[in-house]
């Protein structure tokens, strides 16, 4: 048991650090540091840069266009990535549909889709949730009927993040009504340009328009676009829930955000002294920071076990729960730190290039909306309630 990095890992860390520092475009970096909204182009530019270095599909094996890193390398990469103000790599292609195609796709599908994901040529989105389904994924109603080499898909998906930008969507659809609800589900890839697809934005409480409803009205999908066997989509859905879990906690990002809390608390004053010198507020920072250390230690323990050949199991639900709880706790600390200036709301102030002087300190504008927006993190991707039930049943055997 040791925490020393080998010389190889140390130089790997240096390499990652240098690349990220040298290649993140300054305008994107500034947006990230100010908490401003990113546009489609920002994501695309950055993902292309990573793809150019071969690091976009960070978790993939070499044969499919990934770097083929060990778990320890991956851990270090995630840590450094989180430390820099890089936009998140959108997960829909790289960590969702990509690994599914690797695991369940046939050779043609692999050849067709994987390079475009690893190169960031195609923008994917996810068609899982439906109105009225929520955490009960198996109750989905979108129907796909086979007709002359095509599926005709009808139904509605919701909470589809960034569907307005997407070229393709991967969907769970119902191909059979027989047996248990889990049994008649298939996994389809659908080109967003296909006639019959309509995207309608959902405005969230922070004023954002990142999520959408996607309506599918007699959408024709070639049967070759089915991944895995027909009616076996549930296996894929479960696989996806279990994949890439150690990165899910986003400890690196939380560390960076906590540093932001410290910076802001150093700038804010309370009774004439910096807020960060206030015992109560310092105590809260320490509390979150210690919990972050505990979470990070747990990830490192899982990574070490993974390196020894033990893949992460349902214990990884812990990472989702705690990761999200800490992210949310940090958004609360930010809101607390800025005091009265949590109130003003000028939507445009969150955009880069807004020309008016800020209301209050420059860092204040995105804080409250971000707090509101981030409540979603304990709801989506398997709510914290679902994760607790997974631990209870799969780990504790209750």
């Amino acid at each position, binding site marked *: 048991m040791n925490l020393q990095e080998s010389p190889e890992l140390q130089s790997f860390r240096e390499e990652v650090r240098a690349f990220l520092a040298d290649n993140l475009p300054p305008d994107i970096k500034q947006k990230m540091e100010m908490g401003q909204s990113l546009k489609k182009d920002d994501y695309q530019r950055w993902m292309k840069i990573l793809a150019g270095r071969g690091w976009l599909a960070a978790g993939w094996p070499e044969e499919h266009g990934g770097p083929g890193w060990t778990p320890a390398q991956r851990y270090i990469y995630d840590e450094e990535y989180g430390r820099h103000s890089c936009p998140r790599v959108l997960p829909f292609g790289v960590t969702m549909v990509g690994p599914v195609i690797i695991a369940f796709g046939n050779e043609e599908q692999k050849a067709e889709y994987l390079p475009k994901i690893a190169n960031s040529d195609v923008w994917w989105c996810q068609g899982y949730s439906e109105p009225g389904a929520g955490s009960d994924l198996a109750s989905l109603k979108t129907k796909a009927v086979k007709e002359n080499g095509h599926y005709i898909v009808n139904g509605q998906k919701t909470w589809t993040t960034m569907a307005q930008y997407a070229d393709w969507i991967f969907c769970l659809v119902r191909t059979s009504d027989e047996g248990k609800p889990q049994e008649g589900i298939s996994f389809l890839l659908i080109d967003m340009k296909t006639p019959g697809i309509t995207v309608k934005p*959902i405005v969230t409480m922070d004023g954002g328009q990142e999520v959408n409803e996607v309506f599918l009205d007699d959408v024709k999908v070639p049967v070759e676009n089915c991944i895995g066997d027909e009616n076996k989509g549930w296996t894929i859905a479960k696989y996806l829930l279990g994949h890439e879990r150690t990165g899910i906690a986003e400890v690196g990002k939380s560390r960076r955000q906590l540093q932001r809390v410290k910076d802001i608390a150093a700038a*804010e004053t309370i009774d004439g002294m910096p807020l960060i010198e206030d015992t109560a507020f310092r105590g809260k920072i320490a509390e979150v920071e210690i919990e972050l250390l505990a979470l990070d230690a747990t990830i490192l323990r899982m990574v070490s076990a993974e390196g020894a050949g033990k893949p992460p199991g349902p214990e990884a639900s812990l990472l989702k729960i705690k990761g999200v709880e800490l992210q949310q706790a940090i958004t609360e600390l930010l809101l607390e730190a800025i005091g009265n200036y949590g*109130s*003003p709301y000028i939507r445009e102030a969150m955009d880069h290039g807004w020309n008016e002087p800020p209301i209050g300190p420059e860092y204040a504008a995105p804080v409250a909306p971000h707090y509101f927006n981030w409540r979603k993190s304990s709801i989506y991707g398997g709510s914290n309630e679902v994760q607790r039930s997974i631990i209870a049943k799969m780990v504790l055997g209750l």
Partner: protein
Amino acid sequence: MNLAPTEEQKLLIESVERFVEKDYPFEQRRELAASELGYSADHWATFAELGWLAIPFPEDQGGLGGSITDSCLIAEQLGRGLVVEPYLWTVILGGHLLSRSGRGDLVEQIATGVLQTAFGFAEPTSRYNLASVETSAADSGGWRLNGHKAVVFNAPAADTIIVTARTAGDPRDEEGISLFLVDPKDPGVTLRDYPTVDGLRAAEVILEDATGELLGDAGAAYPLVEETIDRGIAVVCAEAAGIMHTTLQMTREYTAQRKQFGVPLSKFQVLQHRMADMFNLTEQSISLSWVAAVKAESEDSLERARACSAAKVFIGKAGRQVGQESIQMHGGMGMTEEMPISHYFKRLTLIDTLFGNRDHHQRRYSDLLDDKRFAA
């Protein structure tokens, strides 16, 4: 000794309740919050007609001689409907400052609904310390004010803005603080208006050699400022209690109709117990806001401060938990702008930062632990 509304107060509650239920559907709230003015002038006239604006003022100032408790009961019901009309800013803060400063003429205008006011008590670096006043006022044949008042609610609609300014003393001295009326149309007054995340309106008020009209005695305003904010705390706590009530109601209803795995969400034991906790927090918030209401007009300023700070701490914490849980139980739907619950959540969140957050008031409260008169 009776912590229950009187028969008269029950009638008052019913009249506000009726207004909210019949005349204030959520869609209207949404429209008003997005409108140019930010609230309804018609509703304001109705409030005046029904006497709600006159209640807490003495009869010789055109008031009805009611109590702050009456105002709190009104605010609790307004909170249930998430009403945006500026009752707190104009009647509770502005009205009280004017009333105590002998400006019956203006109080009467508030009571009849023709005057809107705002109170600028915060500054960019004051945080929640009411004595942290750097805005200065100098008398050179008429007072001239210079400074920056931060996040002044209702300033965009106000006919007159009341501000604190320092006429003597050092930045955080309680001595040397004075109150002034400034005219938003004065050339020395610049307003930067904006909406707030919880659907209200506020402004940064920049004073550059602005003309000010002294309210009360120069340098001696701090006790009145503290008293006024304590009354504001009691009222906003009542509003928060009302918001929590509706929030729990909505969560009950939503979970009862929404099915997951073939069963209504409300049948999941985990959610049941968490809703029971929400109930406990909501009921205690109502109770404590009533105590704060009664004690907000105590002549013993320590008793007043204690009760108001205690309520603000409890309601800050309770509001956080009730709000967050309501969103979590609404799932994705709770995240949408479309559902009323998200607006209740936002207001509840921001109430904690208004007039000092939980940490601030827990410190204020525990500083009072030393006082001999203090016993739990």
